[in-house]
């Protein structure tokens, strides 16, 4: 059983992202959308936590939301960018989805 965790909050404003990372299990997938895409930026004070999560989970970012915020070139290595179709694939390929609102 694998879960897709969808997070849409900036980790600099709310604790949802941290809470998501604290509850996601090995083998799960995490997708950053909307304001959460700022968490994909390399060199931020939060990037270490995302890198730690990548040791046993796969981390994705919605490319459209990165582009909207002008952050496409600043993503840390290892994060996979997906489009809306890729977002759908992630929901289909995991058994359940949980939105960390």
């Amino acid at each position, binding site marked *: 059983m694998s879960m897709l965790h969808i997070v849409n909050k900036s980790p600099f404003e709310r*604790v949802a992202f941290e809470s998501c990372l604290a*509850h*996601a*299990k090995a083998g799960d997938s995490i997708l950053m959308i909307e304001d959460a895409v700022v968490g994909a930026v390399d060199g931020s004070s939060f990037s270490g936590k995302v890198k730690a999560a990548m040791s046993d989970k796969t981390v994705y970012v919605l490319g459209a939301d990165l582009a909207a915020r002008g952050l496409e070139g600043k993503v840390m290595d290892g994060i996979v960018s997906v489009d809306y179709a890729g977002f759908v694939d992630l929901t289909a390929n995991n058994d*359940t989805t*949980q*939105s*960390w*609102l």
Partner: protein
Amino acid sequence: MSTKNFLFVNRKAPYGTVYALEALEVVLISAAFEQNVSLAFIDDGVYQITKGQNSKETGMKNFSPTFRALGDYDITKLYVSTESLAERGLTVDDLMELTYEDADDDYAEKPSIILVNREEMAAMMAEQEVILSF
């Protein structure tokens, strides 16, 4: 209709926004569908079930007594994050006493609140089939 494991995740404090109240309305409706329902209280969600809530002067309805009725609807699994309580300077004594009568055990009164750490919360989440977040 088939039975699924439904989890309602509550992560927001009551009154500041409507999410907690309207989440509870969904929980009550779900009881009619005889699903395997669990609730999780994480982060500011733990404030939803503190005792002694008095919203009178705000003009808003105090809906916390509704949590006491959940047991009558066979909603008996309320998982509360111990880390979230501790981070907020709260203990289980600050929470309402929420109980249910166990029909399989001569209607003995049992606590609905299940204190779990993050690992246990994550394990419980992994068993769910439908997760509604508020």
